[in-house]
């Protein structure tokens, strides 16, 4: 479980995050949604420690990340996995070497066991056949799957995904969403996904945090969204005709 308490961050006097309080439970997919520039990525970076907030606390199962020593932070980071918007695979390494990298750095296992573990992770994301290829030789969707395999290589307790579907077609996005959702329940991880993909919201939004201009505007489940009267949330989620129609059908079903 990850808990945020009164988190605030500003850049050159401009408040980007204002007093964010939230709880992200383990075993479910927690989504952070919001318009571009609303502060989602800054919030994610504050949670993982790539940015330091001016105020507030980030508690990883009760452990305050911000008051930890450098050594403690490094130890905690080994319990984290992250999937970046651009996949962030190492270009000079093959797919297998990319997945093996965290194991090579931190595991004391034999080479054979490390390869076995990396191949298991690649198999989990259905990419075992691409293990000898370089990131530049595989598609964007495959790169995201490799990033997922690399993120779970060390059995992390916390998984962070920054817009995992960006640049992917709807079908591949569904595959990635389902994969993240399945892995989260399988390993009982605390997963936080940054997204503005409404298909993800409707598909895997077990818990959704809506950020608006740097503050927490709304939090609830995907079914709560249909009944919410929050105007800003409705304007954001049901911005397209398609989703407005989805809402109408869903409301009719509820009334029926």
């Amino acid at each position, binding site marked *: 479980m990850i808990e945020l308490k009164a988190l605030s961050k500003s850049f050159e006097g401009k408040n980007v995050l204002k007093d964010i309080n939230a709880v992200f439970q383990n075993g479910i997919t927690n989504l952070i949604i919001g318009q571009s520039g609303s502060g989602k990525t800054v919030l994610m970076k504050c949670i993982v420690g790539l940015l330091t907030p001016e105020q507030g606390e980030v508690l990883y199962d009760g452990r305050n990340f911000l008051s930890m020593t450098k050594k403690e*932070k490094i*130890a905690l*980071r080994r319990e984290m996995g*992250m999937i*970046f918007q651009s996949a962030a695979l*190492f*270009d*000079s390494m093959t797919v297998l070497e990319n997945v093996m990298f*965290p194991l090579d*750095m931190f595991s004391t296992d034999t080479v054979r066991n490390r390869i076995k573990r990396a191949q298991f992770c690649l198999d989990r994301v259905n990419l075992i056949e691409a293990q000898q290829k370089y990131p530049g030789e595989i598609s964007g969707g495959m790169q995201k799957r490799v990033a997922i395999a690399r993120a779970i290589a060390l059995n992390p307790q916390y998984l962070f995904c920054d817009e995992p579907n960006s640049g992917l077609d709807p079908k591949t996005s569904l595959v990635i969403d389902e994969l993240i959702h399945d892995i989260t329940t399988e390993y009982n991880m605390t997963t936080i996904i940054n997204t503005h993909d409404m298909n993800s919201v409707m598909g895997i939004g077990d818990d959704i945090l809506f950020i608006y201009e740097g503050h927490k505007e709304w939090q609830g489940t995907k079914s709560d969204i249909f009944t919410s009267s929050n105007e800003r949330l409705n304007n954001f989620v049901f911005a397209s005709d398609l989703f407005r129609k989805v809402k109408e059908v869903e409301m009719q079903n509820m009334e029926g």
Partner: protein
Amino acid sequence: MFKALQTLGSYMMLMGKTFTRPERMRMFFKQYIKELSQLGVNSIGIVLLISFFIGAVICIQIKLNIQSPWMPRFVTGYTTREIMLLEFSSSIMCLILAGKVGSNIASELGTMRVTQQIDALEIMGVNSANFLILPKITALVTMIPVLVTFSIFAGIIGAYATAWFGQIINQEDLTYGLQYSFKEWFIWCGIIKSLFFAFIISSVSSYFGYSVEGGSIEVGKASTNAVVCSSVLILFSDLFLTQLLTK
């Protein structure tokens, strides 16, 4: 002035982060070998090529413009050797390498930064500066004496080529000049200077690449800044090192 101090401060902080004990020596050596090949072995070709032609050109220029009946005939060989040993193979060669290796390092690290590969390392709990920069610095500092030695030999072979193929100078005169009043210390001077220059090239370029913020335009700017800054620092330090080493 404030910006320069700020840059110096962040450079020092980055070096502090870089010069720590590697987390996994096995991974460090893997990176080190890769960098030896990428930064050192891959530069041998250009070093040999440039040194050969510069050696030949220095020899021709001195023969045609300096040599006169009032001067001993060995002066061409002697001057060619001194220029190659004292300045060209260390300082000028390092200026050329600042262009080749410096831009390579800055653009590689800059691209890693903008594609979030460095963030990925940090999230994993890896000291990214130590993992990426330390092997580059140690590899270039290790390879530079080899490159300097190759450059000296290539320059001398270039000078001989003017005697063998161009008939510009008598081979015996050239050999006599090359051997005349030879001081072994001058070779060490070149190597010692090049070690400092190698550190400047690799660390300064790494700093510019590592601290990129933005996109591809910033990576290009960082690459240019790395080359310009390394070159200026090489020239300044050459002045001090030459004074210090040839006293």
